[in-house]
């Protein structure tokens, strides 16, 4: 019998999971530190210090308004994570119950939910997010909602797929024989068994959410100054791209690193949580 500690240790033997999880946690930590402390306040403009090269005082230099790039990247990382996390939460909280309901009802209810899903899928998500943010005004909150809406069908599909494969199992039938209603069966028998699928999907959606937030901010429809986000930093830097490429490269590379880290973590988690793949991985490990 393996203890939970052993299983966590064995998880971290998976290289992409290890790299992805550690890198994601580092970025998350950077973001949270910025709530309490940044090297310089990002609201203070100091034109005399604009466009400095990296130095001991400013590790990554300063931007066109003389703000410290390290501080900006820290705050921007936080904004990206917060927006993406809330967008994923919106998708999961609405999408999972819808998917479970579709699997449980079947018939017309399922059909209706699936068609609404297809309808949402049919639109290019980012274009509609732009529409929503232009209609309701550009802000980080509207960006979260817009990205979140397009996470709903993703989670609904994953939840329905997982629930359908579990629904035919005898223990679900046994629960029905015990007089359990569909909501209780979903909570007690279905959700714990599809949790791994949902966690993996959430990690991948988080990466997509960070990209979406960056895109919306880049076109000026997401985070508004004086707050900052990685996308907004890219937008500010494009004017000076030829003059000082590092202003664009730094937020751009940060976005790339975060997204790669989250995708690696998601891939690794999927390998670990899917028993079929895990068995293959195990055999490979032995050989």
């Amino acid at each position, binding site marked *: 019998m393996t203890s939970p500690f052993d299983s966590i240790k064995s998880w971290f033997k998976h290289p992409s999971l290890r790299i992805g999880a550690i890198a994601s946690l580092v970025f998350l930590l950077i973001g949270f530190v910025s709530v309490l402390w940044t090297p310089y306040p990002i609201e203070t403009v100091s034109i005399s210090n604009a466009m400095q090269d990296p130095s001991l005082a400013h590790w990554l230099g300063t931007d066109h308004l003389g703000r410290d790039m390290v501080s900006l990247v820290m705050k921007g990382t936080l904004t990206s994570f917060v927006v993406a996390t809330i967008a994923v939460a919106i998708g999961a909280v609405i999408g999972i119950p819808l998917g479970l309901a579709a699997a449980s009802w079947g018939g017309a209810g399922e059909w209706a939910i699936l068609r609404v899903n297809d309808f949402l899928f049919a639109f290019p998500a980012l274009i509609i997010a732009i529409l929503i943010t232009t209609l309701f005004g550009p802000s980080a909150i509207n960006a979260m909602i817009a990205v979140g809406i397009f996470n709903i069908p993703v989670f609904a599909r994953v939840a329905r797929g997982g629930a359908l494969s579990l629904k035919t199992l005898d223990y679900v*039938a046994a629960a029905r*024989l015990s007089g359990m209603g569909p909501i209780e069966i979903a909570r007690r028998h279905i959700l714990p068994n599809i949790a791994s699928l949902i966690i993996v999907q959430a990690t991948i959606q988080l990466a997509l959410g960070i990209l979406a937030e960056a895109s919306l901010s880049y076109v000026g429809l997401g985070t508004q100054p004086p707050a900052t986000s990685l996308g907004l930093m890219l937008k500010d830097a494009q004017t000076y791209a030829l003059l000082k490429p590092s202003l664009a490269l730094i937020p751009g590379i940060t976005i790339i690193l975060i997204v790669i880290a989250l995708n690696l973590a998601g891939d690794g988690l999927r390998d670990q949580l899917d028993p079929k793949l895990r068995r293959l991985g195990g055999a490979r490990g032995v050989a």
Partner: protein
Amino acid sequence: MALLKVDNLTVSFAGTPILEAVTFMIGKGQRFGIIGESGSGKTMTALAVIGLLPEGATAAGTIAFDGGPLPDDEAARAKLRGRRIGMVFQEPMTSLNPLETAGAQVAEAMTLAGQGGTDVKAEVERLFTEVGLEAAHAARYPHELSGGQRQRVMIAMALAGKPDLLICDEPTSALDLITQRMVLDLIDRICTDRGMALMFISHDLKAVALLCTSIMVVRRGKVVEMGDKLDVLGHPKQDYTKLLLAAGRQRGRALMRAPIGTDMLVVRNVTRRYRQPDVSLFQPRPPLVALDSVNMSVRAGESLALVGPSGAGKSTLARIIAGLDRCSDGEVEFDHQIYHGHDLPKSLRRDISLVFQDPFGSFNPRLTIGESVAEPLRLEQGTGFDELGQRIVEVVKAVGLSPDMLDRYPHEFSGGQRQRFAIARALITRPRLVILDEPVSALDVSVRGEVLVLLNRLRADYGLTFLVISHDLDMVRIVADRVIVMDKGRIIESGTPATLLEKPQEQLTRDLIAASLPDIGIVPVL
């Protein structure tokens, strides 16, 4: 001169031995049976012989085929595999390629083995006839064939290279009783016709006794007993073999029981139709009729068996009675209350319970066994917490297990233990009617007997009424007072086990009886 000689074969995974010092030999044309429970290493022996051990396994010892050692080189092994050794796997559903026709797969096996010469097609047709299929079956895809037909295609593929040794790994355990007998007879005939040696792996003593002349009994990777069939089965020396033989005979008799009362459950004209996907928009497909006007009744205190081939509608009927499915027409009456399936009155839920066939799928892997067993207690509103706790302990003891096991998770138990817990869960509300859907067919032969004895004892102790679904007539003889035979959604015959099994009226019943394998108790005395 031995065709296959296995000497001191030890197979281990990461240092843990799966097989230990297995030594045996098979002569030309000899029929060799390997008996053991699941996990005893039977399949590993076969895989080692054909050189298909899974990655991560290390093998020691020597395997010699036809005088020479088994080659280490994969290419040389592959040649040996197709041409000299043929293999039939357990699961016919997954061992054929779903994207190619049956004929093409047999032809491929033939070309790879360098057989068939110029007219492969004619040769494939000849093989299909030999395994009892029509030539037309060659053009079909695996999903268009039944389980028995697929297993015949597998046998044809194994025969394509004209092997000297045929290895069959539980070839019939996924098939129903009639098909099983037909496939066994086919293997028997082919081996006789071709003078081919056979290595037959099974947990079913009767099947091995029917086919083989010498037998090896394995347990936990070690050889328990080996020798001539008549010696091993007639005068077993080891306790384990005796135990297996006793379990195979299954001679538990019903104990005292409550007198049989009046009708408790009445099924009237129950019909169940399933919609099938239409062929096209304008060409609807008629609904599939799973149950066709079924009328029957179960009396209080009796044990009624529903018998029939797979697809006869037995399980559908059970699910309707238990309230898991609904009938399209007709009604069910239990204790003077009428329902149609899903609308089973809540007050009756605790009176009808169901034991599922597969002990591995019937427990949520993320809940402890105790939580799962206690689940139906939610139906016992108004009973004190302490009393419910006692109820759990009582029912777990009644099925012969210990209450301290309740904190463990399902994967820590064997199939037999899980099935006992499943029975405990079904009994915890003290139901009046217990439906048992193939309660022992997923279990090893050696534990089947125990579970059947347990069921009979519980029935006597608690005055239960049983509705048993099975295709296993041996089991029906032990547990049932009355038998109903079903085929294609209809009841075709009914009677007591004695009259029905001695003097069957219908062809299907006769087929079922003819298909059950001869008792091994008789074989060694010959």
